[in-house]
């Protein structure tokens, strides 16, 4: 049943958010700490466990895969509700601070990614090529 996949996803999502809130409260900040990241780890673990037990038929996987494939449309809707007007009104301080921060980070990312083990990278790349998103390749093309 396709709903089993979606329900599994929902359960991981909610549990992750709750744990993130608890973590936030435990270290005394007024926000959720990594709730979505924890939910992702839970889903990875659940998939690993259920796959081994043979509890994960293709239809159930499709219940998660649909939402993974809906990811880009959701991101487009997210972009459409940003407060772009306020961002542009921030003036030179906001623009410069954002740009400066990003430039520093971009150089850092480029440096770390160049230093990274070249051999390992090429192996990972080979793996990546054989890795297809859940929705299947035909969905990615439309993205």
């Amino acid at each position, binding site marked *: 049943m396709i709903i089993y996949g979606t329900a599994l996803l929902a359960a*991981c999502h909610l549990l992750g958010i709750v744990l993130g809130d608890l973590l936030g409260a435990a270290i005394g900040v007024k926000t959720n*700490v990594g709730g979505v990241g924890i939910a992702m*780890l839970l889903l*990875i673990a659940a998939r690993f466990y259920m796959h081994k037990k043979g509890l994960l038929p293709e239809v159930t996987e499709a219940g998660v895969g649909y939402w993974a494939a809906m990811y880009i449309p959701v991101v487009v*809707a997210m972009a459409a*509700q940003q407060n772009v007007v306020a961002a542009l009104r921030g003036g030179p301080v906001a623009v410069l601070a954002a740009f*400066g921060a*990003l430039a520093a980070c971009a150089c850092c990312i480029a440096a770390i990614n160049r230093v990274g083990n070249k051999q390992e990278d090429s192996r990972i790349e080979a793996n*990546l090529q054989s890795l297809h998103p859940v929705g299947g390749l035909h969905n990615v093309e439309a993205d």
Partner: protein
Amino acid sequence: MLKLIESAVLHNGLVAAFAVVGIVIWVSGILSRRLTFGHVHGSAIAIVIGLALAYWGGIQTGGTKGLADVTLFSGIGLMGGAMLRDFAIVATAFEVQVDEARKAGMIGVVALLLGTLLPFVVGASIAYAFGYSDAVSMTTIGAGAVTYIVGPVTGAAIGASSDVMALSIATGLIKAIMVMVGTPIAARFLGLKTPRSAMVFGGLAGTVSGVSAGLAATDRKLVPYGALVATFHTGIGCLLGPSVLFLATKAVVG
């Protein structure tokens, strides 16, 4: 007749949003093939169109939620809101190769810390250069350069004025938009090819919205790795901002 259609759309907000976003993505695909011969990813164009629509919506209504403030398009608010966004991000974890993620774990943590510290220092310095020389304002604007949620959370905790808070949010928003649009352009320079590189990117670039949209427009397969790290970014920023970073700033400028 027109009224009939209007009320149908109004009463089915989320469904209407699916249709609108579908059209935007369809148009983007055509633009990508015809205008750029596939050089610019269709989803990158779709995100830029989304931002342009958000600007139009903001001008039309004077609201803060872009296109979602236009009553006809209110469903966009639900579809692109935090709930469905996080739901879809969690779903992408199904594609994560556990071994790759584990191997990049340590470098992900380093990237997270650098990704909090670097933007903060740059943001606070630029605030100082523009005359915001008290520790509270510098910390708030610097925190805004981390993400647009860290900014106001930090500002509220240390008692910043509302114009500084607005500036801090604007800084974070501009950063998110720059990451969304700039990532596919800078992908080669950033070395964005592997899961490991995506995790470094997620930690350093920060903002979940920026990272998730930027990676989506670059290479869909890298999204879960970047998002996995980036989701910890705001939490760490909110933890360090009002505490360690504020005290450090206060120690430096007095």
